[in-house]
């Protein structure tokens, strides 16, 4: 099988994005690099990065696993909930 990027993989999935509400809110100004790196290592969708001294996160493409919640709630993650029904990722295999 040809190698795929994470973006390509997420492109195969189906999402109904909640345009108005972010279900995960991060503290963009958080600056403990070790903590931010833990999230970068852990998120299966690769949604976290650190650019120009700011935590960069986009909830579109979130697979709703909650790994980031377990890793960093109360630190980088200010709040975490599931998206409002029926929005978010929609698995057809699972």
């Amino acid at each position, binding site marked *: 099988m040809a190698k795929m990027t994470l973006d390509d993989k997420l492109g195969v999935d189906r999402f*109904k994005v909640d345009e108005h509400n972010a279900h995960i809110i991060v503290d963009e100004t958080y600056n403990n690099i070790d903590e931010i790196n833990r999230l970068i290592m852990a998120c299966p969708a690769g949604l976290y990065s650190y650019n120009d001294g700011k935590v960069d996160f986009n909830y579109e493409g979130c697979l709703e696993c909650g790994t980031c919640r377990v890793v960093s709630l109360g630190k980088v993650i200010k709040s975490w909930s599931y998206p409002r029904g029926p929005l978010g990722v929609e*698995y057809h295999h699972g």
Partner: protein
Amino acid sequence: MSEEKFDAIIVGGGLAGSAAAYTLAKAGLEVAVIERGTSCGSKNVTGGRIYAHSLAKLIPDYAETAPLERKIVKERIVLMGGTGSTTIEYGDEGLKEPAYASYSVLRAKLDAWLAEKAEEAGALYITGIRVDELLQENGKVTGVVADGDSLNADVVLLADGVHSLLAQQIGLKKDLTPHQVGVGVKEVIGLDEKTISDRFGVLPGEGVACLIAGHATGGAVGGGILYTNKNSISLGTVVSIGHIGDGEGLKVPDMVERLKESPLIAPLIAGGELLEYSAHLVPEGGISMTPQLVGDGVLIAGDAAGFVMNLGFTFRGMDLAIESGRLAGEAIIKAKEKSDFSSSGLSEYRSLLDNSFIMRDLKHFRKMPDFMESSQIYKEIPEIAGEVFGSLFKIDGSAPKKMLKNVNSILKRNIKLTTLIKLATKAMGAM
């Protein structure tokens, strides 16, 4: 939503929720299931293979009606080293007998099917709605708030999965810690039915389950999983969140990629097409992470209660989810007869669980989560196996080494003898 009061509201239309709904509806109780996904199963992920015994108890003709992928007839355990891989394969006609039957499954189909069964029995399904909080009066749970509407019931069953944010809200459960859960990442790879049967050496309708320790997670506590479905292969990794970054320090999404590139897996998925990429958490703490299972007007079942066993050679959560859902249903039926939905009225659930395989097996394997955290299983042991077999099979015409001496020197290079003995003792204790 209406003003009517249900006998029971179930949060979550996964396997635990629908097993409970089916049990309650069949007994004539008015039950509503609220599921945040568009349809039941659309938010859920498993490995996976279901051991069918508890489903058989609930729906005896499941083998004819459930959307099962393949009957598992071969078990493979792989110790994957950096270069050499050692595979142990177990096949037995006995695995095909109804009592031991297990099947690969995909949740979008399986959960939708079980929900349909419960609906046919009379349960009401409200899908595409997230429950936001539980209603409480004097400490007793009296219903739920979903999408701004209140819905009342004598009892609420929390079958809302591994995080169970609702159980956390009312203090029945604490937030998950990184050592209590693993993160699973899975790819469903499409291939035609015959190609899969040929590559895995199985007859039509039959399949393989495979657990892989070692190289894929780069030595971090965790492993790879592979299950053959009818027209696809489920391939993924599960890694303990508390150990992400250990060993070689691989990123979680890179682990499945490494698995796919390994010489063992690459030919099995060659020509395949990615159909889905998913991620989900798995409870891994065993019995020590069991929350308070019963409160006034409320019960907890399935992953929400942490009912999963990761034994290294096999992985079980779905059979526990179904059984705990069914038992929660039975307990609610008893409570209804007594019109007592307080925690003492619902306490039957606790005794039913204690007398079931769930608590028996969780107790039996109570030391397993600790053993599974031994880093040597994921690093040194696969390398040792690879080197030992390598020394047997790599023949270049030079003089063979004395077996015992050779194994000794391989062991010495990789692991301290005392560590190995401790590991073996721990394994025996955990089994």
